[in-house]
C-alpha cells in the first residue's frame, strides 16, 4: 500500500486537456451522431477522474468560429448529491457550458462567410491548451493551493484531440507552430480522429510530440478505444505498448494555394513552401534566391533525418 505522501508525488497523476470538436457541419454528417458520441466522452472523463484523485481534466471546445474552456475539474464544485438525477453533476455542468458555447459560436457566425471546407479551429484550441499548461506553471506559487497544485506540477500534462472535421490547410502554419511549442514543453498530443479519412495535421502532431494517433475503426466502441489507449498516464506509457501508426502523412500545405502537396519548392531563405516555381518568394520577398528553390520530398527528407 502506498502511503498518502508517496501518493501525492506519484508519477501517474495526469492533467488531461481534451479538445472536443464541436463542428456542427461535421457532426450533422457523421456516422456517429453527437448525441451518441458525447456519452463515450463523458464516461471517459469520469473514468480518468476516478483513476486518481489528483487527476485533473480540462475540456476545451473547438468550435467553428471560436474556442472556449468549457470544463475544469479542479474548479468544479462537485456539490450536491447525484441521487435522483439522471447523470452526475459534473456532466450536467459540462453539458450546460457546452450548450452555451454552441449558442455563442453560432452567434459569431456571419451569414455567408461559410464556404467550401468546414474545419474547426484546431489551432486555436491547441494554443489554448498550451497556454493553460503555461498558466499552471506560472500560477503555481502565486496561489494558495500548494498541495493540490504541487500534484498537478508533478503531473505530466497531455493533450487529447477528439477531432472529427477535416484539416483546414489555412491553419497549417499556426498548427505547426503549436505542435512545435508542445514538443518544446514536452507535452504529448494524442489524437483520436473520427473523420472518414486520416488527418495529416493530427498525425504529424502526434508523431512530433510523441503522442498516439488513432483512427477508431469502430466508432460505436469509442469508449473502449479511449479507455484502452488514451487513459494511460505518461508514467505508465513507458511500460506499455501502445498502437503505432504505420505511416505518417508528412505532407505540408503550400503557402501559395493552400494545397496539400508532397513535393514542392522551398524558399532558400525563409523556408516557405510553394507548389509551383515562383520568381519571387511571396513570404520574404527574396527575388534572386528563389531561382535556387529546391525540389524536395518532405516525407523522405524527414524520414532520413529523424
Amino acid at each position, binding site marked *: 500500500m502506498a502511503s498518502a505522501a508517496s501518493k501525492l508525488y506519484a508519477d501517474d497523476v495526469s492533467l488531461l486537456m481534451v479538445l472536443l470538436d464541436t463542428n456542427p457541419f461535421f457532426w450533422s454528417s457523421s456516422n456517429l451522431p453527437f448525441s451518441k458520441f458525447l456519452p463515450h466522452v463523458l464516461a471517459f472523463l469520469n473514468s480518468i477522474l476516478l483513476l486518481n484523485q489528483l487527476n485533473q481534466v480540462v475540456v476545451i471546445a473547438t468550435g467553428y468560429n471560436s474556442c472556449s474552456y468549457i470544463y475544469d475539474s479542479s474548479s468544479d464544485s462537485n456539490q450536491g448529491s447525484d441521487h435522483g438525477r439522471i447523470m452526475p453533476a459534473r456532466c450536467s455542468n459540462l453539458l450546460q457550458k457546452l450548450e452555451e458555447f454552441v449558442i455563442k459560436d453560432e452567434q459569431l457566425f456571419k451569414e455567408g462567410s461559410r464556404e467550401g471546407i468546414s474545419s474547426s479551429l484546431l489551432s486555436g484550441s491547441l494554443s489554448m491548451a498550451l497556454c493553460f499548461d503555461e498558466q499552471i506553471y506560472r500560477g503555481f506559487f502565486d496561489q494558495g493551493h500548494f498541495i493540490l497544485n504541487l500534484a498537478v506540477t508533478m503531473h505530466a500534462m497531455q493533450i487529447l484531440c477528439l477531432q472529427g472535421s477535416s484539416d483546414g490547410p489555412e491553419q497549417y502554419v499556426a498548427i505547426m507552430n503549436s505542435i512545435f511549442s508542445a514538443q518544446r514543453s514536452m507535452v504529448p498530443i494524442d489524437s483520436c480522429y473520427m473523420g472518414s479519412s486520416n488527418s495529416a495535421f493530427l498525425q504529424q502532431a502526434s508523431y512530433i510530440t510523441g503522442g498516439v494517433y488513432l483512427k477508431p475503426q469502430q466508432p460505436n466502441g469509442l469508449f473502449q478505444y479511449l479507455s484502452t489507449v488514451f487513459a494511460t498516464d505518461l508514467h505508465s506509457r513507458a511500460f506499455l505498448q501502445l498502437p503505432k501508426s504505420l505511416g505518417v502523412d508528412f505532407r505540408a500545405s503550400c503557402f501559395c494555394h493552400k494545397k496539400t502537396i508532397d513535393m514542392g519548392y522551398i524558399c532558400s531563405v525563409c523556408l516557405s513552401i510553394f507548389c509551383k516555381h515562383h520568381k519571387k518568394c511571396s513570404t520574404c520577398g527574396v527575388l534572386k534566391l528563389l531561382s535556387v528553390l529546391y525540389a524536395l520530398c518532405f516525407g523522405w527528407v524527414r*524520414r532520413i533525418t529523424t
Partner: protein
Amino acid sequence: MSSSSSRRVVKRVKYKDAVKNPGTPGVLTMVENRFVFKPNDPTSARMLDVEFRHIKGHKNTKEGSKQPPLLNLSSSREGISYIFEFQSYPDLHECRDFVGNALSKATETAKTASERDGVTFPDEQLSAAEMELRMKLLQEDSELQKLHMQFVISGVLTESEFWATRKKLLDGDSRTKPKQRVGFKNSMILDTKPTSDGRIFALKPAVHQAFLKLVPIKMTEKDFWTKYFRAEFLHSTKNAATIAAEAAEDEELAIFLKEDEIVAREARWKIRRVDPTLDMEADQGDDYTHLPDHGIFRDGSKDITELQNEQYRRTLSQDLNRQGAVVLQGRTVDGDLEDPENVAEALMRSRQEPDEGAVQERLDRITRMNEMDDLREPRDHPVAQLCIKDPRDYFDTQQANALKTLDDSRIGIEQKKCSMTTEEAYGSLRESISKIKSIGLKNSTVESEIALTVLNGLTQNISSTKYQLGKNPRESILDSLPNRTKEELLHHWMSIQELLRHFWSSYPITTAYLSTKVGKLKDAMSQIYRQLEEIKESDFRHQVSLLVRPMHQALDAAFQHYESDLQKRAARSAEMPNGNA
C-alpha cells in the same frame, strides 16, 4: 624568409660533380624558375643554367654533422645531380627553402597544364595545399569519395563544380594562412626609435604634419627627431613651467610640446557625433575624475598645474586612449616602411579619404535622434521589406483546390454537408446536447461485443506492428531491408541529392556552359532513374518502392522542369532569330 630573398637568391658556392671533389668556386644565383652558376674563373667551362622543372628532388646535409654544408639537386635526367657547397649553414638553408618553393611551383604548373589539355572548361588554379586538402577530405569521407568518383571521374561534374558546393568543407581547413591584417603592436611608444613602422606618425598626427612640412626644406631628418625627443624629454620632467618657457623660445619645439591640434580636433569631432540626447554634463557629475586627487597623470605623478600651462600637460589616460584608438584603427600603410619619408606620405594618402558620407551620416543621425517617434513621418527603408502577409491570404484564394485533393471518399459527405444550412447544423447539434441532457447517461455506453472487437483489434494491431517494426518505434522501413539494398538506396539518394543540387542551382540558364552542364546532369539522373527501377524489381518490392517513390518524384520534377525550360528557350530563340546572344 624575408621578402627580398623569395624572388632571388645569390650565394657564393663551390660547384662539385661528386661530394669528394674539391669543386669550382663561383656564384650561384637562383631566380623564380631557374638557377645559374657562374664560376669565378671566367675561362672555366663549368657554367650552369638549369630550369627548376628539370629538377626532381633535393637533399642537403644536416646542420651539426661533420660534413660541409652541401646541397644536392638531382635532375630528372638519369644520373645527373648538381652539388653545391655553401660557405655556411644559413646560406644553405636559405637556398634549400628557395628550391623547395620553386620545385612545388614547377610541379603544380606542370600539373595544371596537363589538366587543361584534357578539360575544356575553365578550371581554377589550385595550390598544392588546396589539392592536398581536397585529397584529405576525400580520404576521410568515404561517401564523398564515392560521389567524387561517380561524378567527377565520369565527367558529369567538373572538379571545381564538385567542390564549389562544398566551400565550407574547404574553408574549414584552410585556416593555415593568417587572413588577419597585421596591425600595430599594442605597446606604448615611450622609448621607441624614431620611425620603426610609422607608429609615431599614426599616434601623433601633429608630428606627422610637422614632418611633412619641415623635413626636407627646413631641417634634416636628424634634427627633426632630435627636437622631437627633446620635447619628449621635457614632458618627462613634468615641469610645466619649463615646458612653457622652452616652447616660447623655440617655435618648432613648441609643435611637439603643445597639445596635438589634430587629435584635439578629432576629439571635438567625435564629441559632436555623440547622441545629442546624451547629457554629458550629467554623466560627468557621476564620475569623480575631475575631483582633485583622482585620475592618473602621466608616469604616475600628480601635479596641479596652473591653467595657462594646461596645453602643455598630458595625462596618461589621454595617451592610453590615443594609443588604443590607433591600434584599433590598424595599419593602413603598405609599402616600404624603412624610410620615414615614405611612411609619412603613405600615411597621408591613407588619411585623405573623402569624408562626405560621414558628414551626411552625422546629419541623419542627429535628425533621427531628435525626432519624436509619434511625430515623424514613416521612414523609407532602402532594403526590401519582409512582406509577411496574413497567412489566410495565401490560402483563401483556392479553397476549392484543397477540397479536391482531399480523400475522394469524402466527397459524398462534403456535398451532403454543403446542402445543410448553418441554422440546421447548429440546431441539430444543440438538439443532440439537450437530448443527452434529457435521457442522461445510459448504463451501457458500449455494447460488450463491440468492446471485445475493439480490444481484439487493438491488441492485434499492436502485436502486428511490433512484429513488423520491432521494438524501436523510430525504426523505419529502411532498417528492415538487407544491408546491401539499404546501402545502395542511400547511395542513390546521395547521388540524387548531389545532382539535384547542381541541377536546380544552374537555373536560370544564361550561358551555353550551363546548358551543357544541365544536359549532362539530366543524363546522369536518368541513368540513376533506371537503376532505381531495377532495384524496385528486387525481393523487397513493396518496401523498396515506398522508398524509391519520392526519389522518382524528385527526379520527375527535375525532368519536367528541364523539358519545359527547353521548350521555353526553343520558343524564345524561334521568336528572335538573331537574338541568340
